[in-house]
């Protein structure tokens, strides 16, 4: 686009793309983090929805001891007789050993170690049971029985995750506000630098829109360059983090893997940033021009 204003020597030529690149980079990471946490929350919820765990006191010899077998049968029968319970089955020793592996290592557990017995309970769709009442009823059959409602502890985790998402959202908003302030500053600095030419254009008969359009286009180009650079660096960072997070063996740590629609949302950031910059530049310049004759 032809420009009557000599923008090539402006300081904004360098600092606007740089600042916008940093802003888009930060926004990309914050948004990607927020979306990953959101995905993890959904996965956690799916995993524990409609399930409970009943824990029986451990007995030396594990589930094979006669006492343990009797206890398991009694509790399982009681559970299956409870309305709303779809299934109840003890976790095999191998699964329990896998759960303990992070703390006790992968060696065979000593036979005399009283490892708790876990019974996985699945509820009918839409059913929720009072864990305290169920525990009291089962304790009559086998003393020391505990009922763990995974949903309750998960909700605390979900609240934490949602808080992190809010913080990420606030970061994106602050980044947007800072970028807008920078564009306003750049537009005003540009107007100050080109004051004489702007006056000349007015005196020759230019409308404000003719002048504002030139600033708008200039900042559009600079913002787009910065935005694309920020996105590219952000994407590279995310790919590295994705690779690193895939090597972490912790079920509750959210895996940083984004879906195609989520990548598409991130790709919109430079476009959104450019649109905001363009509108901001136009409004700033138009408002300033109205102060002149």
């Amino acid at each position: 686009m032809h420009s009557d204003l000599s923008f090539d020597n402006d300081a904004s030529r360098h600092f606007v793309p740089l600042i916008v690149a940093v802003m888009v980079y930060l926004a990309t990471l914050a948004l990607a983090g927020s979306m990953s946490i959101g995905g993890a929350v959904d996965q956690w919820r799916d995993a524990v929805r409609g399930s409970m765990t009943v824990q029986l006191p451990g007995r030396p010899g594990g589930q094979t001891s006669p006492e343990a077998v009797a206890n398991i049968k009694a509790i399982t029968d009681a559970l299956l007789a409870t309305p709303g319970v779809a299934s109840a089955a003890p976790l095999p020793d191998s699964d329990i050993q896998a759960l303990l592996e992070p703390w006790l290592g992968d060696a065979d557990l000593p036979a005399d170690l009283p490892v708790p017995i876990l019974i996985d309970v699945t509820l009918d769709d839409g059913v929720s049971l009072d864990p305290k009442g169920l525990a009291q009823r089962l304790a009559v059959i086998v003393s020391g029985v505990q009922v763990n409602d995974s949903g309750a502890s998960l909700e605390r985790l979900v609240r934490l995750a949602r808080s992190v998402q809010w913080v990420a959202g606030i970061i994106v908003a602050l980044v947007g506000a800072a970028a807008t302030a920078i564009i306003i500053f750049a537009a005003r600095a540009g107007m100050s630098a080109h004051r004489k030419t702007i006056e000349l254009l007015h005196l020759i008969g230019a409308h404000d829109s003719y002048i504002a359009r030139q600033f708008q286009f200039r900042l559009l180009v600079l913002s787009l360059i910065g935005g694309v650079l920020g996105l590219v660096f952000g994407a590279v960072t995310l790919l590295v983090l994705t690779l690193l997070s895939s090597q972490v063996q912790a079920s509750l740590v959210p895996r940083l893997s984004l879906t195609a629609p989520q990548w598409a949302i991130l790709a919109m950031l430079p476009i959104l940033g450019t649109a905001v910059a363009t509108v901001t530049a136009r409004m700033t310049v138009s408002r300033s021009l109205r102060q002149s004759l």
Partner: protein
Amino acid sequence: MVRFQNVGMRYGLGPEILHDISFQLAPGSFHFLTGASGAGKTTLLRLMYLAHRPSRGLISLFGRDTTTMKRRELPALRRRIGVVFQDFRLIDHLTALDNVALPLRIAGAKKEAIGAHVSELLSWVGLKDHIGARPPTLSDGEKQRVAIARAVIGRPSLLLADEPTGSVDHEQGLRILHLFEELNKIGTTVVIATHDRDLIARFGRPVLRLVGGELSVHRPPRVVAPSSALAQQAGGL
């Protein structure tokens, strides 16, 4: 065409530079505006080309009161005024062609029409070989001619020139004045601010004289001078 009624002008809270200026310019007239340095010539011109609103009084251009006119209505009026600034005010990064084309581009003329008109005008003012040159590479006389071409490309009804001969030699100054006379002959109202008494005497046009911020109108007798030969050269400026 131009009408000032009791116009006073001051910048901010400073002293009044122009006091009770009243005059009227008929369409197609040709006037010199003169006065000592600091007399307010440039300020009077700035009021005429709508760079300022007066502190008081009324200014009417083309039959319209500009003092109460809405800001958005000014561009249309400004497009009917051609201005040759004392310091040329060319845009350094644009070529001579683009500088001259500026008023047409602002007015929304089509690219093809702009190219043809501007090239023709630059040839007329003797800058055919400098169409692609940028102002920093031009001499003062060449810059002056680019500025004049820019002022007249839109066929203005009113042409205002602030010391158009100030940065060129006497002979070239005469050529420029003859060019303005040519434009005046085709109906353009011309006002030229100058403190060159020889030029004023040579052309014998009515003079608006500013003294101490007050205006008086004189019509000096035309001095017969061997300017006819120069007049013929005006076409080859």
